[in-house]
């Protein structure tokens, strides 16, 4: 049984249809990469899976296994507090009992390599460090499902590598991840499944190896070759 499921889901922003007739199952342990051109609906699909946007159709969550979900946004939002207090606050919001918070926050700092920056204002960190803090904050609450919206989009190659290493480790621990990305190499390296979105419609949903080797529909093929035109 999937821990998250969408059936015939549509999302509309005024006259704009962002998603239409979406059906998607996310199973425990999946690492799903959502790919597609700009404006194809990747972020909206992530937010819909997470329950952040109103939609038509049915969204089902297996409460027993998929209750705790956290999202890391493309531009991580950190409060104007220290790194430490950002972590503690996330744990408080997640309802982690007070005695456990310090230990969990320390583990998260260590995990993200931010121990030395613990007292620094979170907003003073570099983009890569803020992204690592956002991941540490998400990991600290031990989510069943972690949503990631282009988590390495604005990072330099070494920061990208660090973030990818963290994501791989999360996946190895059994965390379910759903990530939107423009980086096909990253999808190949990290994901177990690739979902291709085009104009708010899921055109392909295949295991990673098959996605990159099987014949896909014409628009997906064009996208993979980088030949999908904006006006098509």
């Amino acid at each position, binding site marked *: 049984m999937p821990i998250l499921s969408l059936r015939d889901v549509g999302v509309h922003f005024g006259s704009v249809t962002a998603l239409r007739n979406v059906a998607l199952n996310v199973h425990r342990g999946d690492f799903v990469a959502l790919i597609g051109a700009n404006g194809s609906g990747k972020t909206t699909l992530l*937010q819909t899976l*997470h329950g*952040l946007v109103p939609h038509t159709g049915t969204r089902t969550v297996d409460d027993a296994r998929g209750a705790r*979900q*956290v*999202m890391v*946004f493309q531009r*991580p*939002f950190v*409060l*104007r*507090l220290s790194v430490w207090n950002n972590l503690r*606050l*996330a744990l408080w*919001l*997640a*309802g982690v009992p007070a005695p456990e918070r310090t230990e969990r926050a320390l583990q998260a700092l260590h995990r993200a390599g931010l121990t030395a920056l613990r007292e*620094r*204002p979170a*907003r*003073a*960190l570099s983009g890569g460090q803020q992204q690592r803090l956002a991941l540490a*904050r998400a990991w600290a*609450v031990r989510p069943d499902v972690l*949503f990631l919206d282009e988590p390495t989009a604005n990072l330099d190659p070494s920061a990208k590598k660090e973030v990818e290493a963290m994501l791989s480790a999360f996946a190895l621990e059994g965390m379910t991840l759903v990530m939107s990305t423009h980086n096909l190499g990253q999808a190949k390296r990290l994901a177990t499944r690739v979902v291709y979105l085009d104009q708010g419609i899921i055109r392909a949903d295949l295991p990673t190896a098959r996605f990159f080797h099987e014949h896909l529909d014409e628009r997906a093929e064009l996208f993979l070759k980088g030949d999908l035109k904006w006006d098509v």
Partner: protein
Amino acid sequence: MSAFGESFRTAVTLVLEADPVLLRTVGLSLAVSATACAVAAGLGLAAGAWLAVTAFPGRRALVAALNTLLALPSVVVGLVVYLLLSRSGPLGAWGILFTPSAMVIAQTVLVLPVIAALSRQLVADSLRDGGDQLRSMGARPVTAALLMLLHERWAVATILLTAFGRAISEVGAVMIVGGNIDGVTRVITTSIALETSKGDLPLALALGLVLLAIVGAINALIGVAQRVQGPALAGAR
């Protein structure tokens, strides 16, 4: 020019000599306005945060009314509070007309819309930036709004300073409900009005300079605190 020069000299002399009347007047001004701002801050920040995240029929009209009240004339507030507190008014039994308490109530009513309207806008703007992240982390709407007040605490300090500036510089409301009684309800602005009517313009201007110096000093304190607390924050916004 000479009148300004004389005013400045008078102001400096009053301050340097620690004129007891001046100190009492300044002390009462600060106490009344600070108390009013503290009460209005408690109510206004909570109301602003709540209005930023709550949907109900008539919310738009309420927000529009709140924004309109930003321009609430202080004499109107004074008149309304006077009618409420006068012996024949609904709150006449309190017996606080022409006391500092009445002045606190009037100034609270005056600055409450300022704090509520500006904090509502501040929280709404901040939530557009990070609201989804806080919701994702499990924050309920009101919790997210209150966290945004913490996140934007320096902007909140500026709002409170604006409210304090409006409270301490108004004359209409405190004149009507306080009565400008020497040694009891006389504050800087009512003193200025009195000295002007008596024709003692240098003293009136001197008191005005003292008033400006107080607000300037508070502003400077906030600026210093901002620089000490978060030198890196400004660049990281």
